[in-house]
């Protein structure tokens, strides 16, 4: 298993956002985390690369494992060693505005992995070609559309060859057409066997690209299974309600529910 979470609890003060979640994700899986807003899917996703530090529980990615306990500080190097197996795509892209498109992609390679600049540029150009933006390599991110920015962000996340690509609502800040181009890029990656975990409201991502779906509500897993089954034969009432609300929303890449 490339990702193993055991009994993850996350509390913000008195509020329990994740209530003892355990799951394992095999290499090559494409998993969608779905569920109502505030259900904990984003927090769960961010616990995998430790942008959110669990209150307790164990996180293991590609064999690097950390056990968290309340009020025990985990050393930064341990956190970074888990995190280096992951890449992340954010809802609001979060490109570095002061770096050009290609510099955004080379930044991790040059600064963190100490690659020589020429080699990093070569790798970055391959990735930009893959997301269809090689011709924009030397422009500032502020000149790109949202969809283009998100595709650059995907290239940036993939640059250090992470084992897992985490996507936090990758299409929800985008108009449907622009979301479409991001969905297409993610679909390609899924076909190539990239391990992906996506928190999403986007029905296209959840039902057609993800092979399995985990439904989260109130910080707990309601239901999980192959995406076809979850969307056509949901077992739990809460899942049915949630899917009905998505269908009502239409097949849009747009706003959440």
């Amino acid at each position, binding site marked *: 298993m490339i990702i193993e979470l055991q009994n993850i609890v996350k509390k913000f003060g008195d509020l329990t956002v994740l209530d003892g979640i355990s799951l394992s994700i095999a290499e090559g899986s494409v998993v969608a985390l779905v569920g109502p807003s505030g259900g904990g899917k984003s927090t769960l996703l961010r616990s995998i690369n430790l942008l959110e530090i669990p209150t307790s529980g164990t996180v293991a990615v590609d064999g690097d494992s950390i056990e968290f306990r309340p009020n025990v500080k985990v050393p930064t190097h341990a956190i970074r060693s888990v995190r280096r197996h992951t890449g992340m795509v*954010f809802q609001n*892209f979060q490109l570095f505005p002061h770096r050009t498109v290609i510099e955004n992609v080379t*930044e991790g390679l040059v600064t963190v992995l100490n690659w020589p600049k020429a080699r990093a540029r070569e790798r970055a150009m391959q990735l930009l070609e893959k997301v269809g933006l090689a011709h924009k390599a030397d422009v500032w991110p*502020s000149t790109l*559309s949202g969809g283009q920015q998100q595709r650059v962000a995907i290239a940036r996340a993939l640059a250090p060859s992470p084992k897992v690509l985490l996507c936090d609502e990758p299409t929800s800040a985008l108009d449907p057409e622009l979301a479409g181009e991001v969905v297409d890029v993610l679909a390609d990656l899924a076909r190539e066997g990239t391990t992906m975990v996506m928190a999403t409201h986007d029905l296209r991502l959840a039902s057609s690209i993800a092979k399995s779906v985990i439904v989260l509500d109130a910080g707990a897993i309601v239901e999980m299974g192959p995406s076809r089954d979850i969307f056509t034969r949901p077992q739990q009432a809460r899942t049915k309600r949630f899917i009905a609300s998505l269908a009502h929303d239409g097949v849009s890449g747009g706003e959440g529910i």
Partner: protein
Amino acid sequence: MPHWLTLMIDSLGSLLWAGMIFTIPLTLLSFALGLSLGLAAALIRLFAPAPLAAGIKFYVWIFRGTPLLVQLFLIFYGLPSVGIVLDAFTAALIGFTLNIGAYTSEILRAAIGSVARGQWEAAYSIGMSWSQAMRRTILPQASRVAVPPLSNTFISLVKDTSLAAAITVPELFQAAQRIVATTYEPLILYIEAALIYLALSSILSALQSRLEVRLNRYGGFLEARS
């Protein structure tokens, strides 16, 4: 040639000389040291444990809340009473540095805080450490916010160095005072001194504009578009 013009030209050399060997070095040195101190203070305020941050808050409170002239007097005339004797230039340098450090720490604290939290997360997500994120991602973006107010502080400093005259530093303004003492022409000499300060701050304003153009070259801040 009118008398005032002759007088101005005759005294120009000594005023410029005083400016070159005292005013400008004092300005540049105390700004560089003060800015480093201000950055350290801002980072402590933002990221260090509460007692350290409280210490910095106290320092800023003292040095922003008391007159610069009084600070200079305390350092140069006051400290010898407890056995610390400094030459005038060193005393001025220490006073200006501490004062600039207090003001710039607040500017930098606000500028660093203005960079979106998501930028930290993006930097961490590609594997950066805290210091790499700070150096490569946060500070470059904070600097664009900080440059206009830092330039204000810098320009004020050029003019404030004239206060060093009061603790016997023979800088530009004191040079003018000395010429006034022999020529009895305060109006002409002080206008001349004022014009030199004006020229110095105009040069700095021009440099500020060029720096801002460079820092703004990457266009608007990135925001989510929907």
